[in-house]
């Protein structure tokens, strides 16, 4: 009988965190960007505030697409549900902000459950098309249900974020609260990834049949990933309407999906830091390139292409590289 390696069980199971300085770099860069915006305030603080809302949205997208390896073009629908529900409850029914946001998230999760149960039987391109349809239908409802959503005019006068009578109005205050929420979202995603359920997401993403053979209920796991992503999207949508104070159907249009995808792939799909670094970078890029005036879009496109050529797994992949020693044949 051969002997075991001379290590403790915890080390053997690879459970000890082994943070390396390089792994901390995306977090340090992100903290520096947010810190700079906090000090400078004004316009740049607003840009970073929107980026932090997108961190929440893209973190949810990453759970479904990066971990569980499923495709969804319809996460904007759940952001819209969360955003509109919170906007309507606070403006029309005078609900406090926090309960309205929670109600918006719950509504999105219930709708995701109703939609996800039949839709998630589809795979690949079929699932992508079905989820795209969900986004388009939600958009049409926001346009046509004028008695509730006020159509293209949108809803204005949405109260800012706050708890009870305390409202956070200043740029810096909003930036601080959004930083906390974004960090919390990233922390939750990291906890999910290292949990039993997170490993089931990853297994499902790698091979459905192998996951089934191990006793993982693939349908249920897919649905849980979908619902979790919907909750993150709804939270992002609710945050957005309370930061801006206004909502219209365009806010949660296809543009949101494209932007979310860009942030996810540039930041690093499947990584924890990817949504954070991706959302901050993609939000800042147009500001950095503003000096190029008419050529801004050209340089923006070129920058994205270069990033995807030289960092195909995203920027965070540089810093989260796993150990790759040993033989390979």
């Amino acid at each position, binding site marked *: *009988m*051969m*002997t*075991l*390696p001379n*290590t403790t*069980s915890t080390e*053997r*199971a*690879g*459970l000890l965190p*082994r943070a390396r300085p390089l792994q901390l770099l995306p977090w340090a860069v992100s903290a520096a960007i947010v810190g700079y915006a906090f000090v400078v305030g004004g316009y740049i603080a607003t840009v970073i505030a929107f980026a932090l809302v997108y961190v929440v949205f893209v973190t949810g997208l990453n759970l479904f697409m990066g971990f569980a390896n499923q495709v969804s073009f319809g996460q904007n629908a759940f952001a819209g549900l969360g955003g509109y529900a919170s906007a309507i409850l606070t403006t029309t029914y005078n609900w406090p902000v926090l309960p309205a946001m929670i109600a918006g998230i719950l509504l999105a999760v219930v709708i995701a459950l109703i939609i996800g149960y039949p839709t998630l039987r589809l795979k690949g391109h079929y699932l992508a098309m079905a989820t795209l349809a969900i986004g388009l239908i939600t958009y049409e409802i926001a346009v046509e249900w004028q008695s509730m959503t006020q159509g293209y005019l949108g809803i204005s006068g949405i109260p800012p974020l706050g708890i009870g009578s305390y409202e956070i109005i200043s740029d810096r205050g909003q930036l601080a609260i959004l930083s906390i929420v974004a960090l919390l979202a990233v922390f939750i995603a990291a906890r999910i990834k290292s949990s*039993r359920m997170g*490993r*089931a997401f*990853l*297994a499902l993403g*790698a*091979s459905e*049949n*192998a*996951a*089934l*053979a*191990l*006793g*993982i*209920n*693939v349908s249920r796991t897919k649905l849980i990933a979908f619902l979790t992503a919907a909750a993150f999207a709804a939270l992002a949508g609710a945050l957005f309407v309370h930061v801006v104070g206004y909502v219209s159907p365009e806010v949660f249009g296809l543009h949101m999906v494209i932007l979310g995808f860009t942030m996810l792939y540039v930041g690093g799909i*499947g990584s924890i830091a990817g949504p954070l670094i991706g959302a901050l970078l993609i939000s800042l890029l147009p500001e950095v390139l503003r000096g190029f005036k008419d050529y801004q879009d050209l340089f923006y496109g070129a920058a994205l292409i270069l990033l995807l050529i030289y960092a195909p797994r995203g920027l965070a992949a540089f810093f989260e590289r*796993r*150990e*790759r*020693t*040993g*033989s*390979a*044949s």
Partner: protein
Amino acid sequence: MTAAPARILETQALTARYGHVQALSAADIHVCAGELVAVLGPNGAGKSTLLRAILGLASTTGTASFHGTPLPRQDPVAVSSRGVVLVPEGRGIFGPMTVSENLQLGAYRLRSDKAEYERRLTRVLALFPRLGERLSQTAGSMSGGEQQMLAIGRALMSDPKILLLDEPSLGLAPRVIAEIMEKLALLRDEGLPILLVEQKAPAALKLAQRAYVLVLGRIVACLDPRDLSSHDDLAKYYFH
């Protein structure tokens, strides 16, 4: 007079289809306690389909029973929870995850019993010490042989009552195949029933107590490997 050994796994008239294509026709096989049974046959004979049908991954008619009780149809989660565990063709390891994470997924149904997890991990690392040296390495970066060891190790982490192996020799060098087969012999000697699907008949026949020959979706023979004077004898079944 000794009693016949108990049948752990048994299929009766098990038939599987992919759409209009019948890939397995009325297969009757059984595996007894402590037995390693091989299923041999040429490429496309339906060997993998047989395993998929037992696990519930294919649309089937007929029955597959485990310890005398029918296994649920098209419910692989329920089948694997009974201890019927498949090591799929192509290994099905989770490449981007570490060896450690792959092994943790093998014990997915265990939930929070750390002592039992440790016991299983110790057993697997004793059987495959190389996995112990590579716990923090991504599974996809390992050699084919190591990946196959991981696939078997991960299946063992679920504490199977019977192991279904689909072509564990696929794409491996002869030396590595011999090493894998040696480990399977150890498991067989420990009393773990194994149903081994294999194209490389000589390697499988060295281990097996019995072998079924599957051709064009039909079981055409059930052999005792000791009765085969040479492996050329198999060819007559392949081309019958």
